[in-house]
């Protein structure tokens, strides 16, 4: 079953694994007004992203609403090899969350 919001790729080159992901999320700042109603569009943004390799946390990201819509994240770590599992999960300010995992290629 595919993750609804996360596109994830992990590639090994030598001892380094580079992870790239794209998350579908509005990252609404809470400072914009709906043009039709004039009402402020409530803030709706990812606050935390956790990235793990074989169950160990490699990176934790704290995000604010100034991270772009449909945010992209890339990072790298050592000690991974093809076939290992890499996963990403996020939680936003409304409590919504999602996660995805992939095998390092």
């Amino acid at each position, binding site marked *: 079953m595919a993750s609804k919001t996360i*596109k994830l790729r992990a590639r090994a080159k030598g001892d380094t694994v580079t992870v*790239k992901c*794209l998350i579908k999320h509005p990252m609404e700042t809470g400072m914009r007004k709906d043009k039709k109603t004039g009402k402020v569009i409530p803030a709706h943004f990812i606050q935390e992203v956790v990235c793990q390799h074989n169950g160990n946390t490699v990176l934790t990201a704290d995000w604010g609403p100034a991270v772009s819509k449909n945010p*992209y994240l890339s990072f790298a770590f050592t000690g991974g090899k093809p076939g290992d599992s890499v996963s990403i999960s996020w939680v936003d300010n409304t409590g919504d969350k999602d996660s995805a995992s992939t095998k390092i290629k």
Partner: protein
Amino acid sequence: MKKFLIAVSALTMLGGAAISSAQASPSEDLKQFRAYFFKKFPGVKLQDYANGIYALDATRRFEWEAMEEFPPYEDGVEVGKKLFNKYDLGSCFQKGGIGIKQYYPYWDKKTQKVRTLEQDIMACLKKKGVDTKKAKIGWKKGKLAAISAYMAYTSRGKPTSVTIDPSKASLNAYNKGKIFFYAKRGQLNMACADCHVYNAGMLIRGNLLSPALGHTTHFPVWRRKWAKKTAAKKGKSGPLDGFGTIHRRYGGCNKQVRAKPFKAQSETYRDLEYFHTYMSNGIKLNGPSVRQ
């Protein structure tokens, strides 16, 4: 008559620029077209032109490559593939419709007119009995563009291979397209060539002008502007939002110089596409691609 005279005088004013006289052969035109750009941008190889302004500007290229890592058109091409298979469009085309976009547009001997990929797709849909109105399949964007994008995707890497049929009628259409490209129009009195030949690589406000060489290789295109506009209009985003065919862009460009746009798939735009695509012959296709 007056319009034609203006067009011709525009040509003669070119004085040895990108093209030779209106009577020269298409292959001569192509040679001169390439020579002009090679002189203007030394160091940019023929195949690089497929990337448009990203072949000219490193800063913009960095941002573009960032977008192409997880291209916004990926899902749209999947939709195009599903539609292509759903309506069994492969059966209308040579090679099952896979890897054939490089031959478009072509001279249709039967109708004695230029024929485009979008026209062949529509004709196939109608042949299969699809009610295109009910299925909401238009000419410039959405589902048709997605199908065209899928076919472009399967043709990636193939060199543009448009054949200008040597018949009088075909050369006439080619020349009409060429004249359109070089003729000034609109309140801003600008020709396609003004931006994309004489001022290619220059800035127009915050945008870089793309060279016409290599222009057609990455169509149908995914424009961030179209995606934003469509999502705002609908209130939510969908996988086909940014797609547009080359005629959609022709219309947009004409509107930008405050000229009345022609209809998508009108003979005028088809003739233009005939000339325009031929000028990129030899350059490998790389559509669909992300653009501003």
